[in-house]
Structures are given as C-alpha cells and as structure tokens.
C-alpha cells in the first residue's frame, strides 16, 4: 500500500481515529507521518494480547499530542504500552487518555463505566466526617482537572451527606 500523502513510498503508519463514532483510517509513509506530527513505531511486532493484534496502530493516536511524552508518574511510554499491552500506573489512564479512549471503544464498545462505583476508602466507614473530607478532596481534584461531570456527581454526594448531618 502506498502512502496516501506522497503517493510514492510504502505506507508504514496506519492511523485509525474515531470521532463522533465515525472511524477513519489514514495510511502514511514514515516520512509523511513525521511531517503530520505522527511518529512511526517501527519496532518488531510485539507480543501483545490478541486484542492488540487487531487494533493496528490506533494506540498511536496522536490526537492529544502527548504521545511522545512518557507518563510523568511512572515513566511508561507509548512504545512500552504498545509492546507489552500493559499500562504502568493508574495515572497512565489520564496521561494517555486520548489514545486510550479510541482503544477502549474498539475493545469494549464503550468508554463509560456503568458498574459499581467507588466512593473512596472512607466511604464504607461510619465516620461521616472522614467520608465528607474524602469527597471534598476528590471534588477539589475534579475541579482542578476541569472534570465538571465528576465534580457535579461529587457535589451531589456531598450535598446528600450534609443533608443527613443537618
């Protein structure tokens, strides 16, 4: 397959993106991909889980522009992930969020968890004060990350707990 951009060299980068549920794939040579800001992963085929074998290069989705930066918490790089199929720490999910969202949609058909919720380790305790404190900390964090959906959810939980207190 030849590169879609220069129509000359062999396409080595096959980038699949999903936006608004529309899937699009572009096939580029490594040189054109570089000019597009997409780095080619030319390492040998990796021993990935069977699912990764079918997802081609979607892991390399460069839409977030963070792909060349390793996870600031654990140092896992995009290449590490691609080789092993494993992330390094919980923070990797935030760091590689852009790439992961497409991947999760393909693997699971969804990115939204709808199962059990986790309210923090204090949530099960009788100590309402500790629970509120934990929720408020998480609210601060959500606001900091501009995650307003989570913030609204946490705000509701705090309100309902405070209502019980009153």
């Amino acid at each position, binding site marked *: 397959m030849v590169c879609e951009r220069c129509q000359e060299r062999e396409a080595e980068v096959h980038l699949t993106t999903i936006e608004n549920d529309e899937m699009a794939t572009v096939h580029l040579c490594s040189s054109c991909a570089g000019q597009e800001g997409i780095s080619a992963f030319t390492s040998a085929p990796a021993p990935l*889980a069977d*699912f990764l074998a079918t997802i081609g290069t979607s892991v390399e989705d460069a839409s977030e522009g963070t792909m060349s930066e390793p996870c600031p*918490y*654990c140092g*896992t790089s995009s290449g590490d992930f691609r080789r*092993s*199929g*494993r*992330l*390094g*720490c*919980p923070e990797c*999910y*935030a760091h590689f969020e852009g790439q*992961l969202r497409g*991947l*999760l949609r393909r*693997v*699971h*058909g*969804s*990115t*939204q*968890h*709808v*199962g*059990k*919720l*986790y309210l*923090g*380790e204090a*949530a*099960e*305790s009788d100590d309402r004060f500790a629970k509120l404190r934990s929720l408020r900390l998480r609210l601060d964090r*959500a606001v900091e990350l501009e*995650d307003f*959906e*989570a913030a609204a*959810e946490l705000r509701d939980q705090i309100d309902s707990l405070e209502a019980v207190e009153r």
Partner: protein
Amino acid sequence: MSGGNGLGTPSPTVDDRGTSWLDGSGQDHEIVLSTRVRLARNLQGYTFALRADADERRSVLDQVRHSLGASPDLDDGVLWEMSELEAVERRILHERHVVSRELIGPDEGPAPDGTALALGASGPCGVMINEEDHLRIQSLHNGMELEAAWRQVSELDEALGSRLPYAFHHEFGFLTCCPTNVGTGLRASVLVHLPGLVLTKEINKVLQGIAQVGLTYRGLYGEGSEVVGNFFQISNQTTLGKSETDLVDHLREIGVQVVEYEKRARAVLLREAPYVLEDKVWRAYGILRHARSLSFDEMMNLLSGVRLGLTLKLLRTPRVRTLNEIMIFAQSAHLERRAGRTLDEGDADVYRASLVRERLSSEGEATSSPSEPSPEADNSA
C-alpha cells in the same frame, strides 16, 4: 491469620486448601466443573505490580495485609507470600486453579518478591496480591454457580475497598494494568466439559456462536492454555460499558444454553451410536483402571470418556468428585509431593497411573447401569 509471619517458622504447606471446589456440589456439576469470578483492583498512588520494584510491591502487600481484617473470612484464612513457599507448593496452588502462573513465577528459582495469596477460611474465595494488578479478588465454586461466586467476590471487594484506596476513574471505572480489564475489572468464567459437542462435531458452531455474543473461550488454565480433555473455559470478553450483574447474567444465560446443547448432543450420540459410545466409555475406564503409565493429556482424555459415561448413566461409579480430584491430584507438582522428590516425565507418568488406579479401585469395580442398552433391545446397532 496464620502463615506469612516470617518468624523463623518452617515454610508452610498448602495442605488441602483450595480444593473445596472439587466437591461435585454445584448446579450441573457433571458438565460444569467450576465457576470463577474475579475482580481486578489497583491502589491509587502506586505503579502497577508489573512495573513496581520489590519495595513498592512489599508496600502494597503490607497495605493489603492490614486490610484483610475487614473480611471475617479472609481474617480467619491464610496469607502466603509466594517467596516463603517451596516451589512445589506454589505449583500445587496453580494446579488447584487458585493462583495464576504469573503469580507463582518460574518452576525453578525464587518466586517474585512481594507476590502473595490470601485464601479465605471457607475455601473458595481469595485474593492474589501483586499479580499483574495489585489485587485479583476471586471466588471459585463447583458447578454453575455464577450468582454465588459474584456475591462472594462483591462482598470481599466492598470489605477491602473500605480500607484500601482503589484507583478509580469517573469515566473508565476501576483502573487496571491491562486496558482489557478496565471498568468493572470483572472476569467471570465457567469451565465446561463438552465431549458430546466435540464428538458430534458441533463444537465449532457453538464456539463461533459464543464469540458472536461477546464471550470468549480458552483452555483448562485460562488465557493461552490449550483445550485438554474436552474442557472449555467460557468467559466474558469485555469489562467496560456493562454492569457487573449484566456481565454475569449474560454469561449465565449463554452458559445454560451451552449446557443444554451439550445434553442434546449426548442424547443424539446415545440414540445414534449407543454401542460406539458405550465401548468408548468402558475402554477409557479400563485403561485408567489398569494402565501402568499415563501422560497427563492421555489421562485427561480418558477421564473425559469416563465422565461422559457417568452422566449418561453408562457407568454407576466412580463419583464425579473422584474424577475431579484425580484431574487435580494427578498433576506433576501433586505427584512430586506425594513421591517426596522431583519426577522426570517418565516417572511422573508411572506415579500418575498408580494414583489413578488407587483412586478408582477405592470406589470398587464399576458396574453397568441397569438401563444399559443391549443388542436385543436395540435394532439400530
């Protein structure tokens, strides 16, 4: 809490723990060997176990150790660090399906530092610590018992979660080392015995159907293992976007259907080829009863024939439970402990055959069922 205190006590033995799921008590236990449900959980603020160094793994292990008291069953159970168990004891745990190959490390040499198994006092539930994820909370039951297994795992999860800072993301759910587990972190599976579908060559159709409804199948020991003795492990493929109960219910619905197909296939075999089937069953029993050397795969195939004969009432003994126990206790690590030494393949085959003869003869000579087909009564032969 016993074990794991490291106070100069001799290395613990795993005795008969982790075997209660062999008892033949669960629903459809003749066809469904076991049900397993596991939840993957990780702690916020630590790298995942695969990437963590020994110090960090130990720190996670300490946190988990201190949280076990939140569950009365785990509190009364045991906690074994893999590094304090002899290699043969670790392999025995793997042969009993209560730990993964990854947790116990290589057959030779030391176990990975900081990996451990907490096993509840009541038997079928436990936690693998520092496998790929910090916690793999699991429950193992005999027969088709998805609801019971899920309930048990969920209770354990809530108890531990009340003391541990789980890594949780408002959109992606419970965060796991591998994105194939993220969300619920739930993998539910049933290990089913499908000789009828294999013999009638219907099995591929069924397996394709399983894939089409979002489930997957594997061999006897889960991911990457081969199908042996007509045992197939059917499990959910995805973990995100559906609730835990939806995932478990879906697997149960499909599992019940597969069991139904298997029963129908057996009825067809019994109707179309009663003597071929009967001959196969009795030959399998005869070889197991008298062989002097048996490889594991050969034994599994023969046990499959005997198990089929039992369900079809072509044989009245041995009990299903005995067949289950043979499957587990005639594996190499169990045989080595029994022999008190390491065994090469040839020696293991001899010990295996001896154990099988002993277990089968303890149940007495098998007899035909009174409803056994006879040439006079059946003209189709």
